């Protein structure tokens, strides 16, 4: 089980969180009309075997969206910060 150190609430079991996937995708600008950019935003994903930048929401806690750096083999979490103002992601969550 993962333990995520929420900057607002302290270390919590990952079961209190909802996963949001790749944190590196960026919603294109409001005036962007390039379909490939939009396709990549919604469908193309980093999926590294190694450190992954990813979003989690503390949905059963303070409801903050967080950005984590987590290793996808050891599951070690090396950074947690509020996602506020940071990168964005797509799809319905």
């Amino acid at each position: 089980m993962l333990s995520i150190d929420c900057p607002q609430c302290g270390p919590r079991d990952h079961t209190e969180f909802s996963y949001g996937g790749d944190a590196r995708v960026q919603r294109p600008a409001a005036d962007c009309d390039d379909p490939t950019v939009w396709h990549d935003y919604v469908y193309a994903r980093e999926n590294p075997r190694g450190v992954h930048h990813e979003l989690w929401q503390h949905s059963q806690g303070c409801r903050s969206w967080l950005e984590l750096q987590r290793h996808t083999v050891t599951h070690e979490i090396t950074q947690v910060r509020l996602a506020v103002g940071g990168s964005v992601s797509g799809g319905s969550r």
Partner: protein
Amino acid sequence: MLKSYSALAAVPAVWTGAAVHLSELAGLSIWQLDAWQHSERQVCELLADITGLDVAVGASAVSADGVRVLWAGPARYWLVCSEGHAKAYALRAALDVTHGSMNDISDSRCVISLRGPAAEALLQGGVAVDLHPGSYAVQQVLLTALGQHTPITLQRVDHEIFELYVYRSYAQHTLEWLIASAEPFGVSWQTQGM
């Protein structure tokens, strides 16, 4: 005024021991204050001004004279007081809409008090956060879950006294779970005469 109904009215009284006493704290008002990203300080100052409490930015909980301010998430606070408390209305009147908003969410939560030597162990059955007094101090508020499916707000009011704010629709299920879980310790639940 029309009658108010408790979400826990259907749960019959229980007495199998005194290690945990469960009761409903009815008649509380819960006001939710939300600040915008950069106005949290102003909102806290206002809260401090009107309640007379020492509300620091991000403070977990402060209380006095039946008025309580609880941290409820980033830049979000709950003012918990008795129903119709003048301070709540004063605060509402004084809050500048460019700093934040204030909503009455009293009916959205049911508040269950747990007291007794086994209260901590009982809650630990469902809460995945360390409740040992060394890590969870008196006054502190936790936004967490009971089991994997019920979000709750929990405050340790005293060493052996906890107050659990649970969504109203989950309240009866939660109380039934608490009573069943507390069986090995001995538990009492007194329905409010409503």
